[in-house]
């Protein structure tokens, strides 16, 4: 596979190759993403196990706003598109496009976080706190953990963007952008699952 050969040649050239010929940073990051699957798997299963077990309200159908969350989902999906376009631009050495798409990705991430902040504030005003009922506890822990991951991602993206502005990011360190992209896309796929399991299957 050409993509595979290209990235592995880069790993060897930069002294990051493992005995398998794979980039050690990328391999470690995939292992980390694997561990994150288990973290979110346990949080999602906790949510599902306690689903419909709240004795007092507010209940999911009373507070969840599907049109608003659909927009947040669209926003996060578009941020994933911006991320791959940023990586593609950095890999071909087009740093002007790379800077733009990195910033757009971070901006869309911030829009998502703003939406989540608004949603949480709205729920609190509706009387749903972390300790109100089982729905509140499992909902805030699951979506809050995801939001914390998005926050880390936005900080990471802005750091890369600043590096790019200073001229310290180029095709030579495209792997850094690729690993950031892996993290960002993982955050996106977790949201794909949360959107279905929490919001649409009530």
């Amino acid at each position, binding site marked *: 596979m050409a993509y595979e050969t290209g990235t592995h040649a880069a790993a060897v050239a930069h002294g990051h190759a493992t005995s398998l010929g794979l980039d050690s940073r990328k391999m470690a990051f995939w292992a980390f993403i694997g561990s994150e699957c288990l973290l979110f798997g346990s949080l999602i299963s906790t949510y599902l196990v306690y689903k419909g077990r709240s004795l007092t309200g507010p209940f999911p159908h009373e507070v969840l706003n599907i049109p608003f969350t659909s927009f947040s989902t669209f926003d996060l999906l578009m941020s994933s598109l911006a991320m791959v376009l940023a990586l593609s631009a950095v890999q071909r050495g087009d740093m002007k496009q790379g800077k733009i798409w990195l910033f757009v990705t971070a901006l869309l991430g911030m829009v998502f976080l703003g939406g989540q902040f608004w949603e949480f504030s709205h729920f609190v005003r509706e009387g749903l706190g972390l300790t109100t009922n089982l729905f509140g506890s499992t909902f805030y822990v699951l979506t809050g953990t995801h939001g914390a991951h998005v926050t880390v991602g936005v900080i990471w993206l802005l750091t890369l963007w600043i590096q790019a502005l200073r001229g310290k990011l180029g095709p030579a360190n495209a792997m850094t952008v690729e690993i950031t992209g892996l993290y960002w896309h*993982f955050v996106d796929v977790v949201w794909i699952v949360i959107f*279905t399991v929490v919001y649409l299957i009530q």
Partner: protein
Amino acid sequence: MTEQSHATTGTYLRVAAALVIITILEVGVFYVPTFQAALVPVLLFLSAIKFTLVVMFYMHLKFDNRFFTFLFGGPLLLAMAVIVSLLFIFYGALRLRTGV
């Protein structure tokens, strides 16, 4: 980078369009009363398609070394097994307790 021969900007845009269309379908299915009976399997299926598209094309697993697929797929299957097992254990115990 040789990536261009596999995943071009056009491919990324087509994947994005597919993701948006599937999201619209998901929300549509949620609101249409006819689909209420099959809501859960349909939504899970559509969600799985979106998940696969992002992982295969945006995370490049389709083009990358199979070992990365193993590193991701192994824990993913384990996580799914945990979810299914916990649901069976919890609802099984609940059924035993309530007799329903």
